[in-house]
């Protein structure tokens, strides 16, 4: 129990807390906001938190940027490398991909919102829900209960 309140421990894991706070903020926005654009913003925050999570786990304590030292002939200078700790570059690379995916998702989401606004004349989820409920009722009035006494 005491470990939990260990300041050192908390400091070491600060980035996790940051990540969790961001993640929950993002998720909360997605769930709570009725404005479709704000939902996309929330989704972005949620995704960014994951990017940060990935980037933070690539850090090796005392490690430097993973750029290999070269000699004059542009070969890797293995002697100079000895004793240097490098951070792990792989998570960064992965996150580059994830960022691209995130941008694609955002732009697609925004494009959909433009279309939704054209079709429904609003980008508020509650208004849209009302309109859709009306449409469903209309459908049902027209077709739904027409089972001819056999339903």
């Amino acid at each position: 129990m005491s470990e939990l309140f260990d300041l050192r421990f908390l400091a070491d894991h600060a980035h996790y807390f940051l990540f969790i706070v961001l993640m929950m903020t993002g998720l909360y926005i997605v769930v709570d906001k009725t404005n479709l654009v704000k939902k996309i913003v929330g989704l972005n925050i949620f995704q960014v938190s994951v990017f940060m999570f990935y980037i933070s786990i690539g850090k090796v304590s005392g490690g430097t940027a993973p750029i290999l030292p070269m000699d004059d002939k542009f070969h890797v200078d293995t002697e100079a490398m000895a004793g240097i700790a490098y951070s792990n570059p792989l998570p960064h690379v992965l996150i580059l991909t994830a960022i691209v995916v995130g941008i694609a998702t955002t732009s697609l989401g925004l494009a959909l919102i433009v279309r939704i606004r054209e079709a429904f004349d609003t980008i508020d989820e509650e208004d849209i829900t009302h309109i859709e409920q009306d449409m469903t009722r209309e459908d049902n009035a027209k077709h739904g209960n027409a089972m001819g006494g056999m339903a």
Partner: protein
Amino acid sequence: MAVEPHTVEHTARTLMDHLPVLQVLIPFCTGPIIVFLGSRRLAWPLAFVASALSLIVSLMLLWQVKDGGYIAYTLGGWEPPLGIEYRIDAANAFVLMLISLIGTITLPYALISVADEIKRRDHTLFYACWMLCFTGLLGMVATADAFNVFVFLEISSLSTYVLVAMGADRDRRALTAAYDYLIMGTIGATFFVIGLGMIYMATGTLNMADIADRLADQGANRTVRSGFAFVIVGMGLKIAMFPLHLWLPKAYVFAPSAVTVFLAATATKAAIYVMLRFTFSVYRPEFTYATNTLEMIFLPLAVIAMFSASFVAAFQTNFKRMLAYSSVAQIGYILLGVAILNETGLTAGIVHLFNHGITKALMFMGVGAFVLRAGGSFYAQIAGLGRQMPLTGAALVIGGLSLIGVPGTAGFISKWYLVQAAFERAPDNPMYLAIAVSVVLSSLLAVVYVWRAFEAMYLMAPATDIRAKEAPLLMLVPMWVLAIACIWFGIDTDLIAGAAAQAAAGLFEGSQGMLEMKGAVH
């Protein structure tokens, strides 16, 4: 059985050695080509040729691995675990075959359906998106690299959102359906990435076999367990596992008919495959938390899904929506098979994956044909259409019977395996008797919802005096290919159950095999 890995040198010379990557590459290249050519006339033929080639490739792959063993392919010659590896064994060759089969069969159907439902100017983009979606699903299944799964998952998801939204030409609700799906799907995919991050933290690798290796060495800890939870929830959203299924009915109902056919038969199936891979190959059943998850979460959720979704389906007045809820229930059957945790159960799950794929594709195709002629899929709109369109109606009857699981149809075989699997576990745990009974009882609900559709098709008086014409040949042929398949695979189970049993055996011992294989690769 000695597993002799068939490794591919990066100096591989023959086309045959490149099959695993060609599987993904062919549709992947076709998508952009369609866009750049920009020709409406060429879009469909190109897409069809690419699908057919994919089907041939997948059959060749399945042929090579159907008796066990696997094909490892290193992308660009970069050795795993750093490089990306594609690894084809019986389990994913089977799913690849399902996806490319459905893709190839659905395209001829799509030609007319899409022309009817989507604006002409969007056709090229539609087929380009279709190809990308196809690529994503194939890639998710073929790859052995965990992060690569995420990338392909997103390729397929993003293009799926677009495809669903294309239904807006008929009904604007397709847009919100696509938007909802986008939000849910992205949350799911992001959860999946978080899970991967945790696994990477614990193991330092992303190659599935390598992860399995290192997990076996270091045992479980909290990071690994949380990673598993995130992966499962993330995939659960994609699978539409009850209660994460909320996006599914709306997306299926408002998407263009051809898209619904394709998605219903493939998208959830590919996600199920990924989940199986993670639970059985990456995490292995020996980890008690993996088995606990299956027994204590999947099992009850699957049973609830079977009953509640079937129950909801029984009250629908729209054929398409009924089928969508039925899909949620049927996914319950697949997950139940997996959660029973014996080889027969896993076989049942994989067999049902295929059988439900072809059955549901057939059903949605039939409904699509009705939509083409009647303009909608409410029971009142399709009233009496079964008599006016006898060939479509008969195909739908076959599909419906298979959905119920009447003997002589594909659906029966999966139910048989499922009940048998439950009985096999009954001696040590009587609860499984109840599971067996719940399978048969819930299929009675399927009788109810399927029969309501049948009565609408055959016994209700038509809504209009205009006699509907039979569906066009290009729609009928795919429908009847699937209808015959539904009966064929209900009688001759050699191919499907055989391959599924091999896949199940592979998955069950999978991790062991992977350990050995690891040694062979390095």
